[in-house]
């Protein structure tokens, strides 16, 4: 366990020191705040629009962080950072889990910053406390990082460096489109996760909260899916030559 924490720690320290991460958060805050300018265009529903924008943009931010994982692992394998780490008494599975946890933590911190910023913008703009539904949905967005990180790890190990990010983006996009592609039930919850479980924006904008039990169940589902995908990744990685 200590080895996993060491790898995860080095990962988040390495990424969270990049200035671009905070620039991304700042840009997302600006975009969320810009929803306030649409009071006329949204026929006075700019409060709902702001909640919707904050949830949508936080989801995109989380996806961007996770996609960077599909660049990070092949880069570490190619440049020899992984060779140095794997020359220590660290199993390959532990290395992958460490990278995955590292990116989940990075994603959680970045998404939490976006959420806190959107709460402040909401509070200052409308002088009212944030709704429970908005809070729950932001929590679910952070929890959705767990299965997404596992998908990114799986594809970054199984596919060539150039293809991995593209396939990961497509799979995450499909996974967020269950409602549009609901006639393919076998795929969802199996190979492709059902990330719509983590999304109830259409309810959250009207402050219709879900039960906390639902949040816990969805989190458990995400963890189970992450175990499945990372086991598959570990199996592939155990046979892989590290150049």
């Amino acid at each position, binding site marked *: 366990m200590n080895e996993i924490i*060491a790898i995860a720690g080095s990962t988040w320290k390495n990424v969270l020191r990049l200035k671009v991460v905070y620039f991304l958060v700042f840009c997302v805050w600006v975009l969320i705040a810009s929803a306030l300018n649409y009071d006329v265009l949204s026929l006075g529903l700019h409060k709902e629009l702001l909640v919707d924008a904050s949830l949508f943009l936080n989801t995109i931010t989380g996806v961007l962080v996770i996609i960077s994982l599909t660049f990070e692992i092949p880069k570490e394998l190619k*440049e*020899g950072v992984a*060779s140095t780490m794997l*020359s220590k*008494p660290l199993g390959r599975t532990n290395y992958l889990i460490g990278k995955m946890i590292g990116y989940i933590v990075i994603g959680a911190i970045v998404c939490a910053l976006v959420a806190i910023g959107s709460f402040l913008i909401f509070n200052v703009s409308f002088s009212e406390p944030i709704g429970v539904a908005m809070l729950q949905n932001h929590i679910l967005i952070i929890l959705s990082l767990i299965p997404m990180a596992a998908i990114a790890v799986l594809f970054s190990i199984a596919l060539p460096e150039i293809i991995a990010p593209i396939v990961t983006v497509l799979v995450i996009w499909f996974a967020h489109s269950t409602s549009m592609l609901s006639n393919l039930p076998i795929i969802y919850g199996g190979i492709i996760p059902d990330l719509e479980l983590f999304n109830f924006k259409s309810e959250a904008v009207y402050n219709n909260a879900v039960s906390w039990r639902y949040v816990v169940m969805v989190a458990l589902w995400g963890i189970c899916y992450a175990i499945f995908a990372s086991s598959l990744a570990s199996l592939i990685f155990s046979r892989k030559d590290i150049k």
Partner: protein
Amino acid sequence: MGMEAVIKTNNLSKVYKRLFKPKTHALDSLTITVPKGSVYGFLGPNGAGKTTTIKILMDLIKASSGSATVLGRPSYDVEVKGLIGFLPDSPAFSPQLTAFEFLNICAKLLKIPSDLRVNRIETVLETVKMSRHSRDKIGSFSRGMLQRIGVAQAILNEPKLLILDEPLLGLDPYGRQEFKQIILGEQAKGTSVFFSSHILSDVEEICDHIAILDKGKMLCAGRIDELLTASGTKAIIAPENDEALKELVTIAIATSRRDDGSWVLTFDNSNEIKIKLEDATKKFPQAIEISASHEKLEEFFFRIIKGDGAV
């Protein structure tokens, strides 16, 4: 009783299969034994299979056939890595971390107890002369500094075996000298060292064993003093002994003058030459010093690679 080995490979082979391309035999039935306590130089031209061998030993790549044991355990044993120090050919580390943070992560992975970690990190940083850069980010380091950090992480756990892939690459002459001292220091502590290098003069200086590899095949292996055989006879003529010099210079195959005014003459091993040398030594006993002339590692290396004969 057999010699105790720290590395043993048996018919180790690696074949790369690629789509629409012929198979590449990176390693072909390699069998080597690295004795405990030795400094073992692993030599060969580019593409000879040195890095492939080292990566198989570190379980970074899988052998197609054959077996390898490190410190008596299979090379795929994760726990044995705790007893090894490894430096890859192009060391790369997380650029946003400081040297201290990186070594601290390595120390955690090596399961060094937390109360000893800081002290151990400071010691290795001092050894590689990087103490004043311990709080600098690795991303700002030069190639030579990265190599030093690479060496630091390799000796962090006081390993029983050091496996180093091109450790002298990127170091200036001063750095190379320091590095050789580190290797010899580790050997004095009982650590066995196995390293690949292209810098033959350094290998000759510090190694007691070598193996030469080409196109994935072992060409020769053994003790360096046994491999570099006496190829001729060398005579040193003391300064201001022109008579002795005149007598021998005509039969010498090579001559060179030293700074102190003495001359070094090299002769082949024929009986005729031996008789003439004996006569000259009797005639000028104070002026001539005879010794065996050994082949340089560089000459030996090129002779072996060109196929003049495997040993």
